[in-house]
Every structure is written in structure tokens, then in C-alpha cells.
């Protein structure tokens, strides 16, 4: 069946449907990673977004069982690729990408010039758009227009792993691998909803540190979480922010965030530790960034992006508050940023 992608500027891309035959809409974003579509599609940060993958062959290794996903379901609203491969080959594959998309009721189109589309998004900035693979729809959903954290956060407090230290994970749409990465390092993780204040909800001295997770949307929409983090900062609890968590931390500390023209979405983003000069390749997926100039003098720039000089991490000069804009938990993407979990755990007394 023919499928259409219509951008908010009116551009129409014609292709062939290979997901569910229903229409959808959202913010159209591209990712330049060459592997990792199961991880990306289940990453809650993509909630409300239509994902364009720039690597032209997708579906190559099928879809593994759900233990390998980054959340319980596909979070992106739609998928756009150049060529869909219907004959996957991998020992972990349980089904084809097309079957999975249909099962999860996610529309997808192949046969679209994804490079042309990406160039367009690069030049014009990210755009809203709709996928028409069923009846036409008029309204276009904008994930930045509301607080969408309730859609991606957990509903109840849940504990993972065992360890002397207890780390509260404020779930703004956390990827499963953040939990796996912490548990692997021998700490207990208490995952709480985005609006859960651990100072109130958990017993005094019941936790040793807080990790504010990644997540979708405009950080400024997450007022409640920002408020909670403000209180945590005042108490001096060790805090580590990842991606959206970094932006929330910056806002809670009185800083500013802004929308990037087309964001960083890929597995090849170079960042450099400003202090040690050590550079690492990171996995990234963000459309907003922290404005370093807006941060108070107690804060210092920790990482910068080597391509465009934007901020990639902040830390407090003398308190255990730190945050990175990229994804040390990887999945998808390079794994060498994992040392940051160790660094954070060191701070947690």
C-alpha cells in the first residue's frame, strides 16, 4: 500500500507502507545511527516523534525479545526508512521489523528518499508532520506543546537490584539500560514517577543519590520535576542528570535551555571533557540544550560537542551535582561513556 509523509511545510514524500495501516502525526526527527532500531524505537525520548533513520537499510536483524528493548513498547509514533528488509537474519530475531510495527500499531513507510528528507530537516530545522497510511488526519500532534512525561514515566515506585547504596531514578521516560547500568554496578535502584518527590515520599536517609533520566519533549514543560530537583539541590543530594535530566537540572539551578535547530541524534557525536581534554564518542538524542552562559558561577562546563561547540555536560564546582547531555547508558550507540556511572556512584556516599 502507498504511504505518504506530509511535512508541516507542505512537502509530500511518497512511499510504501510496511507498518500498521493507520495514519499518525508528530515531530519529524532524524537519527544517523547505523544500528539499533529496536533500541531507538522503544526509547521513550522518541515519544511523540516520527523517526527518520538515515541508514538506508532497516530491519536487517529483525526484532529481539522484549528483554532487549529500552521500554515495554515502541514509543515513536512512526518510522520512515529508505529500504525495509523483510528477510531478517539474526539468532536473536523473534520477528521481522514489519511484523513488530504492525503488532504495536505503528505506521511506517519505506521507499522515501531519507537523505533528501534529512537535508530538508537540517536546513529548515525539525518540523511537524504526518504519516498517511490510512485515513487522512487533520490535526498534527506537537509533543513540545504539553507536558508529556505522564505518558512515558512509570506509575508506581519500583525497586531494582541490591546494594548498600540506593539511587532514586526519577523516571521522565528512562531507558531500561540506565537501570541495567546501575544495577550492574552493585547499587539498588528505586525508580519513581516523574512527579514523585523522594524527599517527601521516601523515608529520611532512605536514598543516597538521585538520577534524573532522559525523556521526551521540551524540558520547560516538566515544571513539577524541576521543582523537585530544586529541592534536592538545596538538600545537597548527589544528583546525576542524563539528557532531559541534564536540562531539568540546569533549569532547577536557575539556568536556561533552548531548542536546537535540528538536534543531535546519532551514535557518532564527539564530545570533549573540557577539563581533561579527553574526547569520547557518544550516543545522543536531544533537541534541546543547556545554555552554558545562563548558568550561575558555581557551575562549570563539563563537556562540549566538538562539532558545534554546544554544551554536553555541566557540573557544580563544589557540590556533587553533575549532568551530561549524551547517553552514557548507550543502547543504541557507543558504550565508553559508561564510566560516568562509576563517577556518579563515587559521589554517592
Amino acid at each position, binding site marked *: 500500500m502507498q504511504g505518504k509523509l506530509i511535512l508541516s511545510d507542505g512537502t509530500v514524500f511518497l512511499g510504501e507502507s510496511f507498518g500498521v495501516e493507520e495514519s499518525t502525526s508528530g515531530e519529524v526527527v532524524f537519527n*544517523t545511527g*547505523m544500528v539499533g532500531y529496536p533500541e531507538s524505537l522503544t526509547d521513550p525520548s522518541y515519544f511523540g516523534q516520527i523517526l527518520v533513520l538515515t541508514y538506508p537499510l532497516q530491519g*536487517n536483524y529483525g526484532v529481539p525479545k522484549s528483554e532487549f528493548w529500552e521500554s515495554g513498547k515502541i514509543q515513536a509514533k512512526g518510522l520512515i526508512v529508505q529500504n525495509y528488509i523483510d*528477510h531478517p537474519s539474526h539468532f536473536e530475531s523473534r520477528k521481522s521489523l514489519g511484523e513488530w510495527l504492525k503488532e504495536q500499531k505503528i505506521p511506517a513507510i519505506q521507499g522515501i528518499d*531519507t537523505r*533528501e528528507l534529512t537535508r530538508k530537516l537540517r536546513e529548515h530545522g525539525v518540523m511537524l508532520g504526518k504519516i498517511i497510511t490510512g485515513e487522512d488526519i487533520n490535526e498534527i500532534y506537537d509533543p513540545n506543546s504539553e507536558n508529556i512525561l505522564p505518558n512515558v514515566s512509570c506509575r508506581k515506585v519500583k525497586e531494582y537490584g541490591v546494594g548498600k547504596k540506593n539511587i532514586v531514578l526519577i523516571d521522565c521516560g528512562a531507558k531500561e539500560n540506565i537501570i541495567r547500568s546501575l544495577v550492574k554496578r552493585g547499587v539498588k535502584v528505586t525508580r519513581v514517577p516523574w512527579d514523585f518527590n523522594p524527599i517527601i515520599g521516601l523515608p529520611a536517609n532512605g536514598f543516597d543519590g538521585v538520577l534524573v533520566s532522559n525523556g521526551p519533549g521540551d524540558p520547560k514543560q516538566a515544571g513539577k520535576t524541576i521543582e523537585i530537583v530544586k529541592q534536592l539541590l538545596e538538600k545537597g543530594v548527589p544528583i546525576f542528570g542524563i539528557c532531559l535530566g541534564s536540562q531539568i537540572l540546569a533549569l532547577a539551578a536557575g539556568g536556561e535551555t533552548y531548542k536546537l535547530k535540528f538536534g543531535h541524534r546519532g551514535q557518532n557525536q564527539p564530545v570533549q571533557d573540557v577539563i581533561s581534554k*579527553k574526547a569520547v*564518542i557518544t550516543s545522543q538524542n536531544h533537541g534541546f540544550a543547556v545554555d552554558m552562559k545562563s548558568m550561575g558561577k558555581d557551575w562549570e562546563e563539563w563537556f562540549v560537542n566538538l562539532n558545534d561547540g554546544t554544551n554536553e555536560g555541566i557540573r557544580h564546582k563544589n557540590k556533587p551535582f553533575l549532568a551530561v547531555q549524551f547517553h552514557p547508558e*548507550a543502547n543504541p550507540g557507543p558504550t565508553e561513556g559508561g564510566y560516568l556511572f562509576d563517577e556518579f556512584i563515587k559521589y554517592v556516599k
Partner: protein
Amino acid sequence: MGNKLKKNKFKKVLVLGSGALKIGEAGEFDYSGSQALKALKEAKIESVLINPNIATIQTSKSLANKIYFLPVTPYFVQKVIEKEAPDGIFLSFGGQTALNCGLELERRGIFKKFHVQVLGSSLRSIQITEDRELFAKELFKIAVKVPKGGFARTFNEALKIGRKLGYPLLIRSGFSLGGLSSGVASNKEEFINMVSGALKKAPQIAIEEYLKHWKEIEYEVVRDRDGNKITVCNMENLDPLGIHTGESIVVAPSQTLNNYQYHFLRKLSLQVIEHLRIVGECNIQFALNPKNNDCRVIEVNARLSRSSALASKATGYPLAYIAAKIALGFSLPELKNSVTLSTSAFFEPSLDYMVVKIPRWDLQKFVGAKEIIGSEMKSVGEVMAIGRSFPEALQKAIRMMETGQDGLLGNGIDDTKLLPTTQRLFVIARRFSKGESVENIYKVTGIDPWFLYQIKEIVEFEDSLQSSSSSSSSSGAFSRQIVLKAKKLGFSDKLLARTFKVNEKKIREFRKKHDIAPRVKHIDTLAAEYPAKTNYLYLTYHGNESETASTDCSLQPTVVKQKPEDGSREAIVLGSGPYRIGSSVEFDWCCVTAAETLRSKGFKTIIINCNPETVSTDFDCADKLYFEELTFERVSDIYDIEKKANLATDGVNLVLGFGGQVPNNLAMSCFQAGYKILGTSPKSIDRAEDRNKFSKLLDKLGIEQPAWQSFKNSDEAVKFAGKIGYPVLIRPSYVLSGSAMNVAYSGAGLKKYLKHASYVSLEHPVVISKFVEGAKEIEIDGVGQKGKLLIYAISEHVENAGVHSGDATIVLPPQRLFLKTVRQIKKATKKILKALDINGPFNIQFLAKDNRVSVIELNLRASRSFPFVSKVTGFNFVEMATRVMLGEVLSGDFKTIDLDYVGVKAPQFSFSRIKGADPRLRVEMSSTGEVACFGDDLEEAYLKAILATGFKMPKRSVFLTIGGEKNKLDLLTSAQKLSSLGFKIYATEHTHEFLNKHSIKNTRVYKISERKTPSVLDSLKNDKIDLVINISEPRSSRGETAGYLIRRSCVDLGIPLITNLQAAELLVSALANMKLEDLQIKSWDEYVSS
């Protein structure tokens, strides 16, 4: 600060090249060496290059400050170090040759003695990667697995290893004459049987865990001194472990790895490279179990490699250049991405396309070679195709190979044995066509089903095309939908035309009418995330938008740009395609030089080529690079695109004269299509290429040629041969490096060959011509200017006619030619130039005997020897030819004959890589590369040149085995010289008797068939013999088995071997007149000043 000081520390850096092209070490090192020199130039560091490969771009004037055309051996490198006193040396840009040489110099303490710092990875790191045991030990320290195994000399040792490892096991015995033997034992019983058998034949066997059908994955890694590291590219072999990467079809990026595997192997790569403290670039190979995530590190190459050249072209990341910068002290974050010029060089390219590499083999050129591929490399070149689907890229690559294949089916391959051979892809296709399942083929081949499914898709579509075309006779069978789908699957117009029984033009017109045209895409390293400032392009049918060129031409040519006179003019230079026997780096030099000249003349210059081992495919070599096929269809596509984009007065011009025979073959079709072609008219090219037309022309001009005639019928051919008298030369009518050429000495022989020749060339009749024995072969390379001779160089072959010109030793200026012969050659040349109105490069081959010359071949293009004659005479023939083609009027008196020095070009053979191949020289070309050296006289230049191809000076003993009375008499003087020089001489029966008769002391050894000791093989194996001169009589096949065994043993044991009489005479006379110490260490500019 501190860092900066370090960077400027070096004043003069020595760069070691890789010498001649050989199997396993080819054009990729011209690419890497050139990039290293570029980095030095930018850093304003004086560079000195040692590389005897005169056909390379790195040995051009503009790149290195000083060039030594000398062997890359410890002796000569030390001499150059003594003379030049460099403070740094690059060892990692010249392949294994440079690396081995460096390791030996280190062992001898030369670097320490002369205060030369090795730049890049330390020698300690390199030693670890070169020594299997050390390597395993180091990797054990960081808990990284290597294949388990060991060596056994006795049955008990083998059993012990077997017990430790468990089954199945791979057993390999060391090399023995007749090929490597290996086998798999799946249980103890089989193991005992095989081991006891193997140990009877070989003194030592290797036992390894058998990783059957594991995937082979490679990563290219870069690390700087501060420990910043990236993986630039990963690649997946289509063929499973066990097939050498150089023999495998390779794709980039990997296709069947998921995120976990991709990044797990990536992390291991970084970990290993950190542990080994690599500084610069390296390659790491993994074996990955397709059924779980178990893996092994196979090896690490701590230098630029074939894979790194491929990765550079596949990603647009200039690995060699960056590696050189790092070796000079820069850190990765300090460097910029060379494609975007704005983002960082510390990043990992993201591809939004895929590439397929297919090796190119030429095994049919070797007598006795086998088509089976395995753990040893036999391919001589490769192509890389870029596409946005696997079928698209795969089918492009098949055509790029220039082996006459136009698709997966219908190519005459009907063999259905699923063995790992050079033809396996086509065999698999055939099996799919016959209805076999993916599962079955996977089970036998171990090729991942992901690839097989898509190959099957191509085959099924081709089959459906066939049936749809035969079911309907009207041309309406090709609808827009079908043609578009065919193009997306990578089918050519030619194949569609054949299927639908129309001509290619018709398909093209249909496509144009229906807007089925390929789209232009950039390779930008960042998948469109940032704009590219360079024009590295490819074409695809998977896309809607055609990208226009990046107008921000910040990449200026190194030469000063002149203002164009009449608006912007554009020229498209066609490259030479894959390296193969008869066409390699020399044509790349020609293309790069032509492109440089065009740019300096204000032309917007475009290069089309598809060979990842070349410099011409560096994206900054021209204003635009299309990494594309050199087929008429694709050239037309590009011509159309460029014409549309170019509104200038002079339009778009094609330059076909510098890429060898591939572009030359397109001349007529391009001409008929109405394209503008620079230089000599394609009509003249046709008159030179078509043997009938050319022959008539020669008759008209009164120029002699050997008697010849073409035949489709073998009886008539035999009759004709009887008439002109044997021996006769047999060849197909269009000749490229003598494919299927042979000499027949009798009617029976002729009949035998004719069977073969007609098989390989269905479309063209066979040509029989008189083979002139004992004639000298002479070549003239030159440039014609509107039918007049502008410049020429006459070179003579050392070997008499009968040795292919590509295998001959060539001398410039000629040392043994009569003035009269030179005059005759010039006279004939001028006549031909005038008759064909030659305006550009040409090459004519002559035979001379008894003061009479005859013409055997004319090429209206730059020839293989253009770099040689340019660099020896000091006049750049290609630059002059290009300028002439542009209409410039050049004049001058060019001294090319009366020179104070001699240049000798010697062939490089790779027989040791082709098990079983007979190394005897014939009319068929078999050399894979060449070197050229200078000397004050012929003998000095010759000795240097053969030393540069791996010849070792004999110290004590020479073994002579000379067939035929005439040969024996001819070689008598040489034998006497050898004897008086104090060499101990060994000889076989008849040679022994002959030498005795002439009172030359010698020791008889016995042929194997004589079953007596000492046998020839014993003497060769026991290291008693330093040099073998084996002259066989071409006419008889008697005794040839013995001759073959001797020659082959020399190759396998690494003993210098001479099989040609004239070469033997020259060698002996050189040995008599000079010693190694007499060879002068002089740089190019000390010989040729201009």
C-alpha cells in the same frame, strides 16, 4: 603549547614506500604514502621518499622533496639514512614491506645509531602485532580471546593439543609442493588419522579450534598519543572466516550485526588498541560466532592496510592523512573533518549508503593456478560500489570488475559446484535460479542468509524478466514499473536491452522519457547532518532528489589556478577501474596527472573511477569525484547530469586517453552518442584498435607488420599457419594484456590452443600472426600534436620478443639499438601520426630484426610506460599530452635519447602467492607490478631494479639448467664468467655435460625423475643454491615437468630465478662488473635535473 613544540620538532622525515605492486600489497599504499607526504608538506617538514615504484603518484615531483628510486631494503634504507640524516621516519604507510624493513633496521640498531625517531606506533607495539605468540599473550592480559591452537612436530604433541582444545579441530600442514593441505577433524578418531597422515608429509602441523562459518568482521581504528580513539568504519565479510579478506566480498558498514554486536566489537577494538598503545591507524579483525556472541580477535595490523584504504573510500574519512598528522603529534580533537571542513576529525562517520567491495582475480593468466579461494590472497585488485541497497551496490560492483559480467545470470557460468571459488557468486545465483533454498546454500557456504535472500531476490527478478520478455514479443513488456524496479535492483540498460531484444539506446530513451534516471548523492561522512564542502559523489536509483555540487570549492588545487578564457569549462577524466594484470597504478598516475593539468588550466575537473586503491579516487584530487562504474551507461548518465548543470560556452569534455584500455574502449560509443571528446578522434582510435583497419593503414603507409590473418574456423587457421610457417602467435582480435595469447610451434599445438582461445572470446575471431623469433622489441611512447611528433621516448626490451611487454625489462634510453633502427622507428611513427592525425598520447610497439622494423601494436592512449618515460626523461608526457588535447601549441627540443644515465624498469611477479603457477615468462602477461631504478649505466640500473623486486645477490652458488643446444651456446660466456667469479656451479645432466665439455667446473645434480641423490630439490631446499638460471626450450614440452618443478620450487623457497636468456646474460655481466657497494645512492634529482 608543550604540544605545539613537539609538533614542530621534526625537520626531515623519511617515508618508506611499498615498492612494486604485488598480490597483497598494491595501489592502496600509493594512496596512503601520498597522504602521508601531503601531511608532511602541510606541516612544512622536508620529506624524503624511498620507493622504486616509478608508476606511483607519491613519486611525482609535487609531493616529496626528495625521491630515491631504490629498493626498500635495510641495506638501501640505511644508506639513505646515512646520506640524508632524517630525524624521523614513517614506517606504516608502505605496507608490510616498509614495516618489515623498519623492524630489521631496528634490530640492527640503525635508528638509534643515526638518531632517527620512528613516528607513529612504537616498534614495540608493532612487534607485538607481528608475533602470534606475543600477541596472544598481550591479549590474554586484558582477557580478550584469540583462536586457540598450537603447533605439533610429533604425534604425541598433536594429541596433547587436541585433548586440550576439544573437537572439531582444524589441522593444517606446512606448505608442501602442490599446495597447502588442511582438514577438519570432528572427533578423536578422525583426528588421529589425519594427524598421522599429515605428519608423514610435513615436519610440523598447526592445530587450531575450528571456527566453522563464523563471521569475519573488521574495524578500522584511530588513536592519538593522548589516548583519544575512534573506530572509523566497520566492515563485514560476506564470505565466512577462512576466506582471506582480500579474497572476500566485503560490505561496509556491517549488515547483519545488531547494536549490541556492533558496539561490543567496537569496544573490544578500542580496548585492544589502547592496550597495544597504537598511535595512528590500525585494523583489527574479529571472528564472530553467528549463533551466539562468542568472538575471537584474529589479528591486528598496526599500519595502514588494504582495508584502511577501502574504509577511507567507503566513509570519506582520510585515514592515512589523519594517521600521518597524529604521528606528527596532533591530537584527534585538534583536527578537522576533511569533508565538512567545519566539524571535528574526532568522530565516527555515519553512512547513509552502503558499499560492496569485490576482489578482481586474473588467475587465467597463470599456467597451473586454481580457481579455489581460501586463506591465501590471490586477487590482484578490487572494486568498490556504492548504493542505497545491497542489490544495487552488488550489481554495480559486478560490472565494475571489468570481467565481462553484466549480471548474476546469463554469463556462461553453469558450474553448480558450491566451492569457494572466484566464481562462487555466480554459481550461487545459478543455484537459486534452479530453485535451491537459502537454507541449503547457507549450510554449504556459510554466507549469511541476509545476503543470500537478497541475491535470490535479484535472481528471481532476472528470471521473471526473462519469462516476461519471452511471453510477449512486443516491446511493451518493459513498463515504467518494471524498468524502475530493475534499476533499483541494479540491472544495467545493456542487460535489459538483451532481455527485451532491443538495443541499449532504446532502453535509455525509454528511461529518459519516464524520468527513470539515477540521482546524485554526496558522501559527506555525517549522513547529511552537516553540509559537505567537498564533492565526493555517487549515483543511485534509491532516491528522489539529485544533489547539486557543493559550490563552496574551498579545496583548491595545489597548482595556481588560471583564469579560464571562455567561461567555465569542464572536463571529465575517466579512470582505469580495478587494478588487474596489465592495468594498474601507472594509469592512475596518468589520470591524476591529467586532472592536475586540467585544473591548472582552469578546467572544472571531474574524475570517474571505482577502484578504492587509487589516488584518483581521493575526493580532493579533482573538483568532483564520481565513485562510479566506467560503463557507457554510467558515463552517459554523468555526462547528461553535468551537461545539464553546465551552462558554459565550451560545455563538458570527455578525457578518455589516460585510464588505459577501459575508457579507450568507450571512445566509439561516446563519439556516436555525440559527446565531446578531447584529443585524437575516436575514428582514429577505432582505426588503431581494429586490426583489419590498422593493417590496411600500415600497408598503405608502407610500414611492415608480421603476417597475420583472422579466423573463425580452426582448419583455415591451421592452413594459414602452415603457409606462413611456425611458430605463430594466437590472440583474440581485441587485445588487453594478451588475454589468451599463446605461441604455437606446430599444427598440433595450434589446434590445442585454438580450442581455448575461441572459448574465451566468443564474440571475436582469433588472429594468427607470424611469431618472429630472436627479434628485439622496442617501444615508442610519445605525444602527437595535430599529426606531428611533439615528444617521444624510445625504450628497448632486454628480453627478445616472446615475453609480454608488461613482463619485459625495459631500458631507457636504449643502449643497444642501431642508429639506423632508431631512424626507421621514428620515420614509421611520424607516418602513422600523420595518417591518423594523432593529437594526444600514443604508444607503438615495434619488432626489430636484421635491421628491419615492423609494427606490432598501436595504442592511441597513454600506455603503461608513460610514468616511466616521463620520470626518466624529466618531461611529463601526460601533462604535455593534456595540454595538446586542450589545443595549446607546444614546441621544443626534448632530449630523450642522449642521456647521461639509464633507467631500467623491471617487472614484479607474485608467483609465490599463486600456488602451483609456473613462473616461466611467456607471451601472456603475469607480472603484477613494476619498479624502475636509475644508474650511470645499464648494469647498475638493472641490478638496482631487480634488487627492488626482491632479487638477492648470489654469494656462493648458481644452478644452471639450460634447455636446447643454441641456448647452451648462447649462455656459455655467462657460465664462464660465473665460474671465474668464483661461484660454485650446479647443473643438471645435459647442462653438466656441456659445461664439462667447455671445461667449466660444475657439480651435477639429479632431476627428480632420475631418482638419484643429490637431487635438484635437495640442493634447493638445503640452502645450497643462491640463484637459478633455468632456460627452457619453448618448442618442446619434453622435460618440462622437471623444469616446472625446479622453477616452482625456486618460487616456493624464495630462491632468485631467471628464466630468460637475455636477462640471464645481462645479470651475469652486471654481477661480473659490480658489487652491491658499487650501486650509488643518488636521488632522482641527482640524475634528472629539470
